[in-house]
Protein backbone atom coordinates (compact mmCIF):
# COMPACT_ATOMS: atom_id res chain seq x y z
CA UNK A 1 0.00 0.00 0.00
CA UNK A 2 2.73 2.40 1.03
CA UNK A 3 4.82 1.38 -1.97
CA UNK A 4 1.86 2.05 -4.24
CA UNK A 5 1.28 5.47 -2.80
CA UNK A 6 4.95 6.42 -3.14
CA UNK A 7 4.86 5.25 -6.75
CA UNK A 8 1.86 7.51 -7.39
CA UNK A 9 3.69 10.32 -5.68
CA UNK A 10 6.77 9.74 -7.81
CA UNK A 11 4.73 9.83 -10.98
CA UNK A 12 3.07 13.08 -9.94
CA UNK A 13 6.19 14.83 -8.67
CA UNK A 14 8.84 13.44 -11.00
CA UNK A 15 7.60 11.66 -14.12
CA UNK A 16 4.78 14.00 -15.01
CA UNK A 17 6.80 17.25 -14.75
CA UNK A 18 9.66 15.56 -16.62
CA UNK A 19 7.29 14.60 -19.43
CA UNK A 20 6.03 18.18 -19.57
CA UNK A 21 9.55 19.62 -19.72
CA UNK A 22 10.59 17.11 -22.37
CA UNK A 23 7.50 17.99 -24.39
CA UNK A 24 8.58 21.61 -24.25
CA UNK A 25 12.18 20.72 -25.13
CA UNK A 26 11.45 18.29 -27.96
CA UNK A 27 8.00 19.43 -29.12
CA UNK A 28 9.22 22.05 -31.60
CA UNK A 29 11.69 19.60 -33.09
CA UNK A 30 9.11 16.82 -33.42
CA UNK A 31 6.62 19.26 -34.90
CA UNK A 32 9.23 20.31 -37.44
CA UNK A 33 9.78 16.67 -38.34
CA UNK A 34 6.08 15.94 -38.72
CA UNK A 35 5.69 19.01 -40.93
CA UNK A 36 8.56 17.83 -43.10
CA UNK A 37 6.87 14.51 -43.91
CA UNK A 38 3.43 15.98 -44.61
CA UNK A 39 2.50 16.28 -48.31
CA UNK A 40 2.49 19.87 -49.54
CA UNK A 41 -1.16 19.64 -50.59
CA UNK A 42 -2.22 18.65 -47.10
CA UNK A 43 -0.14 21.16 -45.18
CA UNK A 44 -2.50 24.09 -45.51
CA UNK A 45 -5.75 22.16 -45.46
CA UNK A 46 -5.69 19.56 -42.71
CA UNK A 47 -2.35 20.62 -41.26
CA UNK A 48 0.75 18.54 -40.47
CA UNK A 49 0.13 14.90 -39.67
CA UNK A 50 1.89 11.57 -39.93
CA UNK A 51 -1.09 9.86 -41.55
CA UNK A 52 0.15 10.02 -45.13
CA UNK A 53 3.86 10.40 -44.57
CA UNK A 54 5.94 11.29 -47.60
CA UNK A 55 9.57 11.97 -48.38
CA UNK A 56 8.78 14.29 -51.29
CA UNK A 57 10.28 17.32 -49.55
CA UNK A 58 13.54 15.52 -48.84
CA UNK A 59 13.80 14.29 -52.41
CA UNK A 60 13.26 17.80 -53.67
CA UNK A 61 15.77 19.18 -51.21
CA UNK A 62 18.55 17.04 -52.63
CA UNK A 63 17.44 16.87 -56.29
CA UNK A 64 16.52 20.46 -57.07
CA UNK A 65 17.75 22.62 -54.23
CA UNK A 66 21.15 20.91 -54.13
CA UNK A 67 21.45 20.44 -50.41
CA UNK A 68 24.11 17.79 -50.83
CA UNK A 69 26.67 20.37 -51.98
CA UNK A 70 25.96 22.52 -48.98
CA UNK A 71 26.52 19.56 -46.72
CA UNK A 72 29.88 18.90 -48.37
CA UNK A 73 30.91 22.51 -47.81
CA UNK A 74 29.86 22.37 -44.18
CA UNK A 75 31.73 19.12 -43.80
CA UNK A 76 34.96 20.58 -45.23
CA UNK A 77 34.73 23.67 -43.06
CA UNK A 78 33.86 21.80 -39.88
CA UNK A 79 36.48 19.10 -40.52
CA UNK A 80 39.15 21.71 -41.24
CA UNK A 81 38.30 23.57 -38.07
CA UNK A 82 38.63 20.36 -36.06
CA UNK A 83 42.10 19.72 -37.50
CA UNK A 84 43.33 23.29 -36.90
CA UNK A 85 41.72 23.54 -33.47
CA UNK A 86 43.09 20.27 -32.19
CA UNK A 87 46.62 20.51 -33.56
CA UNK A 88 47.18 23.92 -32.12
CA UNK A 89 45.60 23.27 -28.77
CA UNK A 90 46.98 19.88 -27.75
CA UNK A 91 50.54 21.09 -27.19
CA UNK A 92 49.28 24.25 -25.53
CA UNK A 93 47.10 22.24 -23.20
CA UNK A 94 50.09 20.06 -22.31
CA UNK A 95 52.12 23.12 -21.43
CA UNK A 96 49.32 24.55 -19.28
CA UNK A 97 48.73 21.28 -17.51
CA UNK A 98 52.33 20.20 -16.84
CA UNK A 99 54.39 23.35 -16.39
CA UNK A 100 54.23 26.24 -13.96
CA UNK A 101 55.78 29.23 -15.67
CA UNK A 102 55.49 32.99 -15.37
CA UNK A 103 52.48 34.28 -17.27
CA UNK A 104 50.65 30.95 -17.14
CA UNK A 105 47.61 32.32 -15.41
CA UNK A 106 47.47 35.33 -17.69
CA UNK A 107 47.69 33.22 -20.83
CA UNK A 108 45.15 30.71 -19.62
CA UNK A 109 42.71 33.48 -18.74
CA UNK A 110 43.36 35.07 -22.08
CA UNK A 111 42.06 31.96 -23.80
CA UNK A 112 38.97 32.12 -21.65
CA UNK A 113 38.33 35.78 -22.35
CA UNK A 114 38.63 35.35 -26.11
CA UNK A 115 35.61 33.08 -26.05
CA UNK A 116 33.55 35.85 -24.54
CA UNK A 117 34.23 38.53 -27.06
CA UNK A 118 31.20 39.29 -29.16
CA UNK A 119 31.34 37.84 -32.62
CA UNK A 120 30.58 41.27 -34.14
CA UNK A 121 33.88 42.50 -32.82
CA UNK A 122 35.70 39.95 -34.99
CA UNK A 123 33.39 39.55 -37.92
CA UNK A 124 33.89 43.09 -39.24
CA UNK A 125 37.72 43.11 -39.30
CA UNK A 126 37.90 39.53 -40.57
CA UNK A 127 35.63 40.48 -43.44
CA UNK A 128 37.84 43.46 -44.32
CA UNK A 129 40.98 41.34 -43.95
CA UNK A 130 39.80 38.46 -46.13
CA UNK A 131 38.48 40.92 -48.68
CA UNK A 132 41.92 42.50 -49.02
CA UNK A 133 43.59 39.08 -49.20
CA UNK A 134 41.03 37.93 -51.76
CA UNK A 135 40.05 35.01 -49.53
CA UNK A 136 36.35 35.77 -49.20
CA UNK A 137 34.12 32.88 -50.19
CA UNK A 138 36.78 30.21 -49.59
CA UNK A 139 36.84 27.28 -47.20
CA UNK A 140 40.07 28.64 -45.77
CA UNK A 141 38.41 31.86 -44.61
CA UNK A 142 35.64 29.99 -42.85
CA UNK A 143 38.05 27.56 -41.21
CA UNK A 144 40.09 30.46 -39.84
CA UNK A 145 36.98 32.27 -38.65
CA UNK A 146 35.64 29.17 -36.91
CA UNK A 147 39.04 28.59 -35.34
CA UNK A 148 38.62 31.83 -33.41
CA UNK A 149 35.93 29.97 -31.49
CA UNK A 150 37.45 26.49 -31.60
CA UNK A 151 41.00 27.16 -30.42
CA UNK A 152 40.26 28.90 -27.12
CA UNK A 153 37.57 26.38 -26.34
CA UNK A 154 39.67 23.32 -27.04
CA UNK A 155 42.66 24.70 -25.14
CA UNK A 156 40.43 24.86 -22.09
CA UNK A 157 38.80 21.55 -22.66
CA UNK A 158 42.10 19.73 -23.28
CA UNK A 159 43.84 21.41 -20.35
CA UNK A 160 41.08 20.28 -18.06
CA UNK A 161 41.27 16.79 -19.50
CA UNK A 162 45.06 16.52 -19.18
CA UNK A 163 44.88 17.74 -15.59
CA UNK A 164 43.03 14.52 -14.94
CA UNK A 165 45.94 12.39 -16.13
CA UNK A 166 48.47 11.84 -13.31
CA UNK A 167 51.76 13.64 -13.73
CA UNK A 168 53.56 10.63 -12.33
CA UNK A 169 52.93 8.85 -15.64
CA UNK A 170 54.99 11.23 -17.75
CA UNK A 171 57.61 11.44 -15.02
CA UNK A 172 57.92 7.67 -15.06
CA UNK A 173 58.30 7.76 -18.84
CA UNK A 174 61.03 10.37 -18.55
CA UNK A 175 62.93 8.38 -15.95
CA UNK A 176 62.81 5.53 -18.44
CA UNK A 177 64.59 7.75 -20.94
CA UNK A 178 61.79 9.50 -22.79
CA UNK A 179 62.20 13.17 -23.57
CA UNK A 180 59.42 15.60 -22.58
CA UNK A 181 57.97 15.50 -26.06
CA UNK A 182 58.41 11.75 -26.12
CA UNK A 183 56.38 11.53 -22.93
CA UNK A 184 53.69 13.73 -24.46
CA UNK A 185 53.61 11.70 -27.66
CA UNK A 186 53.88 8.17 -26.25
CA UNK A 187 52.18 8.41 -22.88
CA UNK A 188 49.90 11.40 -22.45
CA UNK A 189 48.47 11.63 -25.96
CA UNK A 190 47.24 8.02 -26.12
CA UNK A 191 45.56 8.50 -22.76
CA UNK A 192 43.95 11.70 -24.04
CA UNK A 193 42.27 10.07 -27.02
CA UNK A 194 38.79 10.09 -25.46
CA UNK A 195 39.21 13.75 -24.53
CA UNK A 196 40.53 14.61 -27.97
CA UNK A 197 37.59 12.87 -29.62
CA UNK A 198 35.06 14.64 -27.41
CA UNK A 199 36.70 18.01 -28.01
CA UNK A 200 36.94 17.34 -31.74
CA UNK A 201 33.29 16.42 -31.94
CA UNK A 202 32.31 19.52 -30.01
CA UNK A 203 34.34 21.69 -32.39
CA UNK A 204 32.76 19.90 -35.33
CA UNK A 205 29.25 20.54 -34.03
CA UNK A 206 29.97 24.19 -33.28
CA UNK A 207 31.51 24.77 -36.70
CA UNK A 208 28.71 22.88 -38.42
CA UNK A 209 26.10 24.96 -36.61
CA UNK A 210 27.89 28.28 -37.09
CA UNK A 211 25.95 30.79 -39.13
CA UNK A 212 27.09 34.42 -38.93
CA UNK A 213 30.65 33.84 -40.17
CA UNK A 214 29.37 31.53 -42.88
CA UNK A 215 26.91 34.18 -44.01
CA UNK A 216 29.39 37.05 -43.98
CA UNK A 217 32.57 35.37 -45.20
CA UNK A 218 31.03 32.72 -47.45
CA UNK A 219 29.13 33.34 -50.61
CA UNK A 220 28.19 31.77 -53.90
CA UNK A 221 30.99 29.19 -53.96
CA UNK A 222 31.11 28.20 -50.35
CA UNK A 223 27.62 28.06 -48.96
CA UNK A 224 27.32 26.02 -45.81
CA UNK A 225 24.22 24.19 -44.70
CA UNK A 226 23.16 26.85 -42.19
CA UNK A 227 23.29 29.57 -44.83
CA UNK A 228 21.45 27.27 -47.23
CA UNK A 229 18.67 26.75 -44.69
CA UNK A 230 18.38 30.47 -44.15
CA UNK A 231 18.32 31.08 -47.91
CA UNK A 232 15.48 28.58 -48.18
CA UNK A 233 13.44 30.71 -45.78
CA UNK A 234 13.82 33.64 -48.15
CA UNK A 235 13.23 31.75 -51.38
CA UNK A 236 10.49 29.30 -50.51
CA UNK A 237 8.66 31.45 -48.00
CA UNK A 238 5.50 29.45 -47.50
CA UNK A 239 6.68 26.01 -48.54
CA UNK A 240 6.97 24.85 -45.00
CA UNK A 241 7.34 21.21 -45.94
CA UNK A 242 10.54 21.93 -47.81
CA UNK A 243 11.79 24.40 -45.20
CA UNK A 244 11.30 22.04 -42.29
CA UNK A 245 12.93 19.20 -44.24
CA UNK A 246 15.91 21.52 -44.69
CA UNK A 247 15.92 22.18 -40.96
CA UNK A 248 15.88 18.48 -40.13
CA UNK A 249 18.72 17.70 -42.54
CA UNK A 250 20.75 20.67 -41.33
CA UNK A 251 20.40 19.65 -37.71
CA UNK A 252 20.81 15.91 -38.14
CA UNK A 253 24.62 15.42 -38.18
CA UNK A 254 25.15 17.62 -35.15
CA UNK A 255 22.26 16.07 -33.24
CA UNK A 256 23.42 12.51 -33.85
CA UNK A 257 27.01 13.29 -32.91
CA UNK A 258 25.85 15.07 -29.83
CA UNK A 259 23.65 12.26 -28.61
CA UNK A 260 26.51 9.81 -29.20
CA UNK A 261 29.00 11.65 -27.03
CA UNK A 262 26.75 13.71 -24.76
CA UNK A 263 27.83 11.92 -21.60
CA UNK A 264 31.54 12.47 -21.99
CA UNK A 265 31.05 15.93 -23.47
CA UNK A 266 28.89 17.15 -20.63
CA UNK A 267 31.22 15.83 -17.98
CA UNK A 268 34.09 17.60 -19.76
CA UNK A 269 32.16 20.83 -20.13
CA UNK A 270 30.86 20.91 -16.60
CA UNK A 271 34.22 19.94 -15.16
CA UNK A 272 35.75 22.87 -17.02
CA UNK A 273 33.02 25.18 -15.81
CA UNK A 274 32.93 24.02 -12.23
CA UNK A 275 36.66 24.16 -11.77
CA UNK A 276 37.11 27.23 -13.89
Amino acid at each position, binding site marked *: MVAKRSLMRRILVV*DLPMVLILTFALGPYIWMFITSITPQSQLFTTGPSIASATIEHYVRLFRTVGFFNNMVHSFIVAGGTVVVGLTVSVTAAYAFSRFRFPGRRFLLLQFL*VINMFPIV*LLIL*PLFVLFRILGLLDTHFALIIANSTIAIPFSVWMMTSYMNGIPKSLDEAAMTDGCSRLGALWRVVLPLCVPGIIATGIYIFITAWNEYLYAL*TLGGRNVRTITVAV*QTLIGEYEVEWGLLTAGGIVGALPATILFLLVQRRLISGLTRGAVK*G
Partner: protein
Amino acid sequence: MSPHDKTPPRKGRGGFALGRRVLPLALLSPAVLVTVSIIFVPMLQTAWMSLHEYVLFRPNAITFIGLENFAAALTDEVFWISLWHTVIWIALTVPAQMVLGLVTALILNQAFPWRPVARALIIVPWALPSVVIALMWVWLYDPNYGILNDFLLRLGLISRSVPWLADPDTALYAIILTLTWQGFPFFAVMILAALQSIPQSYYEAAAIDGASRWQQFWHITLPGISGVLVTAVLLRTIWVANSIDVIFVMTGGGPGYATYTLPLYAFIKARSNLDFGYGSALAVIFTLLLMAIVIIYLRQTAKAIER
Protein backbone atom coordinates in the same frame (compact mmCIF):
# COMPACT_ATOMS: atom_id res chain seq x y z
CA MET B 1 57.36 19.40 -8.46
CA SER B 2 58.52 15.85 -8.14
CA PRO B 3 62.12 14.89 -7.44
CA HIS B 4 62.51 13.56 -11.00
CA ASP B 5 62.52 17.04 -12.44
CA LYS B 6 65.61 17.89 -10.47
CA THR B 7 67.66 14.92 -11.61
CA PRO B 8 68.88 15.72 -15.11
CA PRO B 9 68.53 12.71 -17.40
CA ARG B 10 71.31 12.34 -19.96
CA LYS B 11 71.49 16.00 -21.01
CA GLY B 12 73.71 18.50 -19.19
CA ARG B 13 72.27 20.34 -16.25
CA GLY B 14 72.29 23.75 -17.91
CA GLY B 15 70.62 22.57 -21.11
CA PHE B 16 67.85 20.88 -19.21
CA ALA B 17 67.08 23.91 -17.09
CA LEU B 18 66.96 26.07 -20.17
CA GLY B 19 64.81 23.51 -21.93
CA ARG B 20 62.45 23.48 -19.02
CA ARG B 21 62.00 27.19 -19.27
CA VAL B 22 61.74 27.35 -23.05
CA LEU B 23 59.78 24.18 -23.70
CA PRO B 24 56.41 25.33 -22.30
CA LEU B 25 56.66 28.53 -24.31
CA ALA B 26 57.56 26.58 -27.42
CA LEU B 27 54.60 24.28 -26.86
CA LEU B 28 52.32 27.27 -26.37
CA SER B 29 53.58 29.35 -29.24
CA PRO B 30 51.42 27.89 -32.04
CA ALA B 31 48.21 28.51 -30.11
CA VAL B 32 49.31 31.94 -28.95
CA LEU B 33 50.57 33.03 -32.36
CA VAL B 34 47.43 31.89 -34.11
CA THR B 35 45.11 33.54 -31.61
CA VAL B 36 47.09 36.76 -31.71
CA SER B 37 46.93 36.92 -35.47
CA ILE B 38 43.32 35.87 -35.97
CA ILE B 39 41.78 37.38 -32.84
CA PHE B 40 43.82 40.13 -31.24
CA VAL B 41 45.02 41.82 -34.40
CA PRO B 42 41.49 41.90 -35.87
CA MET B 43 40.21 43.28 -32.57
CA LEU B 44 42.70 46.11 -32.74
CA GLN B 45 41.57 46.68 -36.28
CA THR B 46 37.99 47.05 -35.05
CA ALA B 47 39.18 49.66 -32.58
CA TRP B 48 41.05 51.40 -35.40
CA MET B 49 38.02 51.33 -37.70
CA SER B 50 35.82 52.74 -34.97
CA LEU B 51 37.93 55.91 -35.00
CA HIS B 52 37.51 56.38 -38.72
CA GLU B 53 34.88 57.23 -41.20
CA TYR B 54 34.98 53.90 -42.96
CA VAL B 55 32.30 53.00 -45.48
CA LEU B 56 33.13 49.89 -47.44
CA PHE B 57 32.07 51.08 -50.88
CA ARG B 58 34.16 54.24 -50.50
CA PRO B 59 37.57 52.72 -49.79
CA ASN B 60 39.43 55.90 -50.69
CA ALA B 61 37.58 58.07 -48.26
CA ILE B 62 38.79 56.56 -45.00
CA THR B 63 39.37 59.52 -42.75
CA PHE B 64 40.34 59.75 -39.11
CA ILE B 65 37.52 61.33 -37.14
CA GLY B 66 38.53 60.58 -33.57
CA LEU B 67 35.64 59.77 -31.29
CA GLU B 68 32.94 61.15 -33.58
CA ASN B 69 31.42 57.72 -34.17
CA PHE B 70 31.05 57.27 -30.43
CA ALA B 71 29.57 60.74 -30.02
CA ALA B 72 27.17 59.96 -32.84
CA ALA B 73 26.08 56.77 -31.08
CA LEU B 74 25.15 58.67 -27.92
CA THR B 75 22.74 60.88 -29.85
CA ASP B 76 21.48 58.01 -32.00
CA GLU B 77 17.97 57.05 -30.96
CA VAL B 78 18.36 53.53 -32.37
CA PHE B 79 21.44 53.03 -30.21
CA TRP B 80 19.44 53.68 -27.05
CA ILE B 81 16.55 51.51 -28.25
CA SER B 82 18.99 48.69 -28.96
CA LEU B 83 20.71 49.11 -25.61
CA TRP B 84 17.38 49.00 -23.79
CA HIS B 85 16.38 45.86 -25.69
CA THR B 86 19.71 44.27 -24.78
CA VAL B 87 18.94 44.92 -21.12
CA ILE B 88 15.42 43.42 -21.37
CA TRP B 89 16.82 40.58 -23.43
CA ILE B 90 19.34 39.59 -20.75
CA ALA B 91 17.16 40.37 -17.76
CA LEU B 92 14.35 38.10 -18.93
CA THR B 93 16.17 35.34 -20.79
CA VAL B 94 18.84 34.44 -18.25
CA PRO B 95 16.56 34.15 -15.19
CA ALA B 96 13.98 32.23 -17.25
CA GLN B 97 16.66 29.81 -18.42
CA MET B 98 17.95 29.48 -14.88
CA VAL B 99 14.62 28.75 -13.22
CA LEU B 100 13.61 26.25 -15.87
CA GLY B 101 17.08 24.70 -15.78
CA LEU B 102 17.00 24.44 -11.99
CA VAL B 103 13.60 22.74 -12.00
CA THR B 104 14.76 20.35 -14.71
CA ALA B 105 17.95 19.54 -12.81
CA LEU B 106 16.09 18.93 -9.55
CA ILE B 107 13.78 16.49 -11.32
CA LEU B 108 16.64 14.79 -13.14
CA ASN B 109 18.37 14.35 -9.80
CA GLN B 110 15.53 12.09 -8.59
CA ALA B 111 15.60 8.38 -9.25
CA PHE B 112 13.22 7.20 -11.96
CA PRO B 113 13.56 4.38 -14.48
CA TRP B 114 13.94 6.40 -17.67
CA ARG B 115 16.29 9.00 -16.24
CA PRO B 116 19.23 8.31 -18.63
CA VAL B 117 16.93 8.76 -21.62
CA ALA B 118 15.48 11.98 -20.26
CA ARG B 119 18.94 13.31 -19.48
CA ALA B 120 20.16 12.62 -22.99
CA LEU B 121 17.09 14.06 -24.73
CA ILE B 122 16.92 17.25 -22.70
CA ILE B 123 20.14 18.41 -24.38
CA VAL B 124 18.73 18.34 -27.90
CA PRO B 125 17.74 22.04 -28.09
CA TRP B 126 21.28 22.97 -27.19
CA ALA B 127 22.80 20.92 -30.00
CA LEU B 128 20.69 22.36 -32.80
CA PRO B 129 22.02 25.02 -35.17
CA SER B 130 20.64 28.49 -34.37
CA VAL B 131 19.32 28.81 -37.91
CA VAL B 132 17.26 25.65 -37.54
CA ILE B 133 16.00 26.83 -34.16
CA ALA B 134 14.98 30.14 -35.70
CA LEU B 135 13.32 28.36 -38.61
CA MET B 136 11.26 26.04 -36.49
CA TRP B 137 10.12 28.75 -34.12
CA VAL B 138 9.10 30.96 -37.01
CA TRP B 139 6.97 28.01 -38.11
CA LEU B 140 5.49 27.58 -34.62
CA TYR B 141 4.70 31.29 -34.45
CA ASP B 142 3.27 31.45 -37.99
CA PRO B 143 0.15 33.65 -37.86
CA ASN B 144 -1.84 31.54 -40.34
CA TYR B 145 -0.79 27.95 -39.85
CA GLY B 146 1.39 28.04 -36.73
CA ILE B 147 0.61 25.50 -34.06
CA LEU B 148 0.94 28.03 -31.24
CA ASN B 149 -1.94 30.16 -32.48
CA ASP B 150 -3.94 27.03 -33.22
CA PHE B 151 -3.32 25.73 -29.72
CA LEU B 152 -4.15 28.99 -27.96
CA LEU B 153 -7.27 29.51 -30.07
CA ARG B 154 -8.56 26.06 -29.15
CA LEU B 155 -7.93 26.73 -25.49
CA GLY B 156 -9.77 30.00 -25.90
CA LEU B 157 -6.86 32.03 -24.55
CA ILE B 158 -6.84 34.30 -27.59
CA SER B 159 -9.78 35.24 -29.75
CA ARG B 160 -7.90 35.54 -33.04
CA SER B 161 -4.48 34.67 -34.42
CA VAL B 162 -1.64 36.80 -33.14
CA PRO B 163 1.20 37.59 -35.56
CA TRP B 164 3.76 37.04 -32.81
CA LEU B 165 6.82 38.08 -34.80
CA ALA B 166 5.22 40.81 -36.87
CA ASP B 167 3.73 42.68 -33.93
CA PRO B 168 6.25 45.10 -32.39
CA ASP B 169 4.70 44.53 -28.95
CA THR B 170 5.24 40.77 -28.92
CA ALA B 171 8.21 40.16 -31.25
CA LEU B 172 10.97 40.65 -28.68
CA TYR B 173 9.23 38.45 -26.11
CA ALA B 174 8.56 35.76 -28.68
CA ILE B 175 12.28 35.58 -29.42
CA ILE B 176 13.10 35.61 -25.71
CA LEU B 177 10.94 32.49 -25.34
CA THR B 178 12.87 30.87 -28.19
CA LEU B 179 16.19 31.66 -26.58
CA THR B 180 14.98 30.44 -23.21
CA TRP B 181 14.12 27.18 -24.88
CA GLN B 182 17.54 26.98 -26.49
CA GLY B 183 19.51 27.76 -23.35
CA PHE B 184 17.79 26.09 -20.41
CA PRO B 185 19.35 22.64 -21.03
CA PHE B 186 22.76 24.20 -20.40
CA PHE B 187 21.65 25.28 -16.95
CA ALA B 188 20.04 21.93 -16.35
CA VAL B 189 23.16 19.86 -17.04
CA MET B 190 25.46 22.21 -15.13
CA ILE B 191 23.20 22.36 -12.09
CA LEU B 192 22.66 18.61 -12.26
CA ALA B 193 26.43 18.04 -12.08
CA ALA B 194 26.58 20.27 -9.02
CA LEU B 195 23.62 18.53 -7.39
CA GLN B 196 25.27 15.17 -7.79
CA SER B 197 28.37 16.39 -6.01
CA ILE B 198 26.39 17.14 -2.81
CA PRO B 199 26.93 14.20 -0.45
CA GLN B 200 23.74 12.21 0.20
CA SER B 201 24.69 12.01 3.89
CA TYR B 202 23.89 15.73 4.32
CA TYR B 203 20.29 15.08 3.45
CA GLU B 204 20.14 12.00 5.62
CA ALA B 205 21.50 13.92 8.59
CA ALA B 206 19.05 16.76 7.95
CA ALA B 207 16.15 14.33 7.67
CA ILE B 208 17.08 12.78 11.03
CA ASP B 209 17.12 16.25 12.55
CA GLY B 210 13.61 16.73 11.22
CA ALA B 211 14.31 19.26 8.47
CA SER B 212 11.49 19.65 5.98
CA ARG B 213 12.02 19.24 2.23
CA TRP B 214 11.96 22.96 1.80
CA GLN B 215 14.48 23.50 4.60
CA GLN B 216 16.74 20.88 3.04
CA PHE B 217 16.54 22.65 -0.28
CA TRP B 218 17.21 26.03 1.27
CA HIS B 219 20.05 25.03 3.58
CA ILE B 220 21.76 22.19 1.74
CA THR B 221 20.90 22.19 -1.97
CA LEU B 222 21.08 25.89 -2.63
CA PRO B 223 24.42 26.50 -0.88
CA GLY B 224 25.75 23.37 -2.56
CA ILE B 225 25.02 24.63 -6.06
CA SER B 226 25.49 28.36 -5.50
CA GLY B 227 29.01 28.42 -6.95
CA VAL B 228 27.95 26.69 -10.14
CA LEU B 229 24.83 28.81 -10.32
CA VAL B 230 26.83 32.03 -10.24
CA THR B 231 29.27 30.73 -12.87
CA ALA B 232 26.45 29.52 -15.08
CA VAL B 233 24.54 32.79 -14.81
CA LEU B 234 27.62 34.82 -15.73
CA LEU B 235 28.50 32.54 -18.64
CA ARG B 236 24.93 32.58 -19.92
CA THR B 237 24.63 36.34 -19.56
CA ILE B 238 27.68 36.81 -21.75
CA TRP B 239 26.45 34.23 -24.20
CA VAL B 240 22.87 35.53 -24.39
CA ALA B 241 24.09 39.09 -24.79
CA ASN B 242 26.27 37.99 -27.69
CA SER B 243 23.85 35.77 -29.51
CA ILE B 244 22.34 37.54 -32.46
CA ASP B 245 21.93 34.75 -35.01
CA VAL B 246 18.52 33.62 -33.77
CA ILE B 247 17.15 37.17 -33.82
CA PHE B 248 18.77 37.87 -37.15
CA VAL B 249 17.09 34.90 -38.83
CA MET B 250 13.74 35.23 -37.06
CA THR B 251 13.06 38.93 -37.57
CA GLY B 252 16.23 40.58 -38.83
CA GLY B 253 15.72 43.14 -36.06
CA GLY B 254 12.21 44.07 -37.14
CA PRO B 255 9.43 44.96 -37.21
CA GLY B 256 10.92 48.44 -37.25
CA TYR B 257 13.52 48.36 -34.50
CA ALA B 258 11.43 46.16 -32.22
CA THR B 259 14.00 43.36 -31.88
CA TYR B 260 17.27 45.27 -32.26
CA THR B 261 19.89 44.48 -29.66
CA LEU B 262 23.19 46.31 -29.54
CA PRO B 263 25.39 43.68 -31.24
CA LEU B 264 22.70 43.09 -33.84
CA TYR B 265 22.57 46.81 -34.57
CA ALA B 266 26.36 46.83 -35.05
CA PHE B 267 26.14 43.82 -37.35
CA ILE B 268 23.30 45.25 -39.44
CA LYS B 269 25.01 48.64 -39.70
CA ALA B 270 28.06 47.00 -41.20
CA ARG B 271 26.26 44.38 -43.23
CA SER B 272 23.45 46.41 -44.76
CA ASN B 273 24.83 49.94 -44.74
CA LEU B 274 28.46 48.80 -45.13
CA ASP B 275 29.23 51.47 -42.54
CA PHE B 276 32.14 49.66 -40.90
CA GLY B 277 33.30 52.71 -38.96
CA TYR B 278 30.05 53.22 -37.09
CA GLY B 279 29.41 49.48 -36.83
CA SER B 280 32.83 49.01 -35.24
CA ALA B 281 32.18 51.82 -32.78
CA LEU B 282 28.93 50.12 -31.73
CA ALA B 283 30.76 46.80 -31.39
CA VAL B 284 33.43 48.44 -29.23
CA ILE B 285 30.85 50.09 -26.96
CA PHE B 286 29.01 46.81 -26.58
CA THR B 287 32.24 44.97 -25.77
CA LEU B 288 33.21 47.51 -23.13
CA LEU B 289 29.82 47.15 -21.46
CA LEU B 290 30.10 43.38 -21.60
CA MET B 291 33.58 43.50 -20.07
CA ALA B 292 32.05 44.41 -16.73
CA ILE B 293 30.38 41.01 -16.59
CA VAL B 294 33.42 39.25 -18.01
CA ILE B 295 35.63 40.72 -15.29
CA ILE B 296 33.29 39.51 -12.54
CA TYR B 297 33.40 36.08 -14.12
CA LEU B 298 37.19 36.13 -14.33
CA ARG B 299 37.47 36.99 -10.64
CA GLN B 300 35.51 33.82 -9.95
CA THR B 301 37.63 31.72 -12.25
CA ALA B 302 41.07 33.12 -11.47
CA LYS B 303 40.87 31.72 -7.97
CA ALA B 304 40.21 28.27 -9.36
CA ILE B 305 43.22 28.32 -11.70
CA GLU B 306 45.58 29.40 -8.96
CA ARG B 307 45.81 25.86 -7.67
